[in-house]
């Protein structure tokens, strides 16, 4: 049975969510991993873990974007994660 359309977002929101999931998810996941790598004394193990955990976090964020009803809330959460990662990158 195809999904019931009454639960799905409008076309505009869907495009916004698609971009948020793919690009926003990538940026947030990358910023978070690099931030943690920068914040710990030895970055190598973190960066090597990132070679697989980055995809898991990225996919997790994609799912999150779709589970949250409003696209702008997803954007806000992704932005916060990216900013947190950026803060770690540039303050350590």
């Amino acid at each position, binding site marked *: 049975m*195809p999904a019931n359309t009454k639960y799905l977002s409008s076309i505009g929101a869907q495009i916004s969510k698609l971009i948020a999931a793919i690009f926003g998810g990538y940026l947030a996941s990358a910023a978070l991993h690099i931030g943690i790598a920068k914040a710990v004394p030895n970055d*190598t193990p973190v*960066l090597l873990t990132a070679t*697989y955990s980055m*995809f*898991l976090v990225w996919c997790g964020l994609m799912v999150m974007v*779709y589970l949250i009803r409003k696209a702008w809330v997803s954007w806000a959460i992704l932005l916060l994660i990216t900013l947190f990662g950026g803060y770690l990158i540039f303050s350590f």
Partner: protein
Amino acid sequence: MKKLKGLGKRAYNVMFHTHTVAGIVISFALFVIFFAGAFAMFRHETKQWEDPDLRQPLAQESDLDALLSQADEEFQLNFGQITNLNFPTEINPAFTIYGATNDSDTTTARVALRVNPVDGRIEDWEDPKTTVADTIYFLHYFRQIPVIGLYLSGFVGLFFLFSVITGLLIHWKNLFTKFYAFVKEGKWKVIWTNAHTVLGVIGLPFQVMYAVTGAFFGLLALVLLPSVILLYEGDSTKLFAKVQPQQAIEVDENAPPAVNHLSLNELEAQIHERYPDHHISRVQLRNYGKADGVVSWQIDHENSITAPGTISMQTKDGAILPEYSVLPETKTYSNAVTDYIFKLHFGTFGGAGLRFLYFILALLTCFMIITGVLIWRTARDNNRYTYLQRLFHHRVTKWYLAICLSMLPAFALLFLTNKVIPMEWDGRAAVVNRVFFLGWLGLTLIGLRWDKYSQQNRNYLLIAGVLGMLIPFANGLATGDWFWVSINSYPWVAAIDIFWLLVGGLSLYLVFFVLKVKPTSDKPIPTLEEEPTERKVFEEPAVEKPITALVKPG
């Protein structure tokens, strides 16, 4: 059966929708990846099958120094550049040298040479005569598509992971029931759905592992690029050197020539003494023949996941350089991560049995991908959809099935063509590849003319069956290694012949005794005149009138 707490109504529908869209978008690319990947599990075995030159017993002891100096004599190797010497294996009994040669006074060119340790024959390996295994392996990550192929395959892996996670969330509530839902009765939609979920649940660990490691290989650049820019001033070798310390070895190009250095044979004996269980897979030479020469031995063990290691030695005294070595017994997490990912993805930690299991699981995943498309189409095959919508669903499914199901006959064609075209022909590899790709295209286009999925399925199996049955005979006629003889001398060559014989026989058995196709008068979707004048509103309970293209077997 125990039930888990599932998603809420809205979340369920949203996840269902994203699962459908992501799945349909990647489905046929994912099928190609898994199908080619399954065959690529045995690519080294296939190499021995396709190339009669590789059918010779493994030389017990090889004089490394002699074969290196012979290659140097014939091709003027430049040992100032990194030179790798790959060791022979049971199924590839030749050494391969990847090095550089002086093509003018100031420039060097990379060369790949194949050295036969038995008769000492050296061939230029840049232009191989046969590439069946490589063609399949490259197709597995779309290397034939210039520049973006690898990234494309990486994104397919990423969205596969997304589909797996959303699929898991959808079926979370009934996860335990689904594990046992081997139902082969009822409506086609029920059969496809059960097959899809059962294989999805059972194959879950396998599929998650391949989704993640596949994304790793395809999208590593996306992971490393920002980290290297932000943490390593854009110099990626600094990061790689932490993973593979031998990459950080620095040599002086003006170093004086070596005097009284240990020979490669003597250094090799030391490695064998220290790691008797391991075999050497490769040795990397840096400034070989100079006073500061270093050789790095790569060792491995087929039945262990922790085995790979690198041991760097000075050629002047054989001393191990710990800062440039990764000893299997003391290696760190950072040294091991990429080794593990490689071993997991290539299935090189549990012998041939494990790779065979991977082969089966990959084919089951292919079946799961197809059932997903069939669910998508069958669930839309009712009068809630307009004629044009249904025609679109039907055409998309027909295209997908044509591309996917024609792969088996196309692979059979590839194997067969490799034996039909004589080994002596110049540029034969390119001809074989052209036959394969044009053959696949042709088979796909023919398949679009078969309007019923059951017809596509049967006809492709028929072609695959006939071509597959011919393969062992073509190999026997072309090389003289009939499988009942080669089973004793080169078991893998015989195994591939027997595999095709079984696949061909099974296909023909299915075609003639199991599968049935409905008479062609039966249209899979209604014509324009039959379209209901009033479309049902979506919320109403469905009036299921599946007009299916498939007929129940028997």
